[in-house]
């Protein structure tokens, strides 16, 4: 009886350790990484920041997409906003889609930001950060350029106005359009 009890306790302890190990392996395997250049951008559907309804990335398949992650509390996003709007205005006639994804932000503040900077491209709300997590966003602003097949052409970590990205944003769009 005692021996059986001891064996059961040992088996239970081993099962607990195995369970914890399995959890550790699962979390390591499912860690979220930014999709690399050439890989397919993770699909998502998000609610519009302004107005009802949702927008799905899949609905833009066949068009080049500029995916800009931002927040109203982000200082560099302010300086970038005017440049993004200018580029959106010049590229939209060539079929390029610009999508803004507002990250970990109060919707009311985000709407105020959009209005203050007169941004006219579609804006989506990701308050919980579930989509931004799948894109490995660790800071804002960050911008992805996707080609017509939905593959990543470029990933710019920081404002597109950063001198380090001089020409990189434009050439990525040119590559995505081609």
């Amino acid at each position, binding site marked *: 009886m005692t021996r059986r009890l001891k064996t059961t306790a040992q088996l239970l302890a081993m099962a607990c350790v195995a369970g914890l190990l399995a959890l550790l392996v699962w979390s390591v395997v499912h860690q979220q990484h930014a999709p690399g250049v050439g890989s397919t951008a993770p699909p998502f559907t998000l609610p519009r920041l302004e107005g009802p309804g949702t927008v799905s990335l899949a609905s833009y398949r066949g068009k080049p997409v500029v995916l800009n992650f931002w*927040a109203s*509390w*982000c*200082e560099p996003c302010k300086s970038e906003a005017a440049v993004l709007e200018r580029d959106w205005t010049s590229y939209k006639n060539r079929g390029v889609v610009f999508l803004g994804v507002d990250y*970990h*932000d109060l*919707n009311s503040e985000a709407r105020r930001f959009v209005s203050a900077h007169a941004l006219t491209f579609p804006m989506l709300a990701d*308050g*919980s950060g*579930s989509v931004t997590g799948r894109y490995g966003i660790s800071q804002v602003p960050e911008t992805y350029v996707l080609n017509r097949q939905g593959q990543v052409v470029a990933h710019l970590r920081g404002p597109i106005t950063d001198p380090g990205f001089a020409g990189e944003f434009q050439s990525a769009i040119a590559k995505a359009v081609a």
Partner: protein
Amino acid sequence: MLRFAAVVVAGLVFAGQAAACAHPRTSLNYLQGQVMCPTCHTTLDMSDSQAAQQIKGFIAKRIAACWTAKQIESALVANYGQGILAAPSHKGFDLLAWWLPIVGVLAGALVLAFGVWRWSGRKGPGGPDDPAESGLDEETERRLDDLLARFD
């Protein structure tokens, strides 16, 4: 710093209005411990990030407008999702987070109690003087007692 000053000023500006609340007012201090900073994954009182400052400002304004803690938390959950709250909800899968520690402590106490009971039971009521525990048969025990009696 400027943002923090703005939060304080907003609190003061609405203080007069808040005095007229029909129910006891909640406090910024209380809610800062209940709400998470979404970018730094600590509670608001532990964070000074821009995202945290924005939420603190939102809370201060709502407190001044006589919102209850529940109403403010609900508004934040609607905007950021359940993850904005430091404590999990009391329903569905989240219940596990509340019950598992209790079950763990109870299981530990049971194992401990069982171990103590086994340990004390093995020692026996008579301790090492109990013949049954000495491992000697009765005859040997008697002879040993006689032998020891000679030395008394």
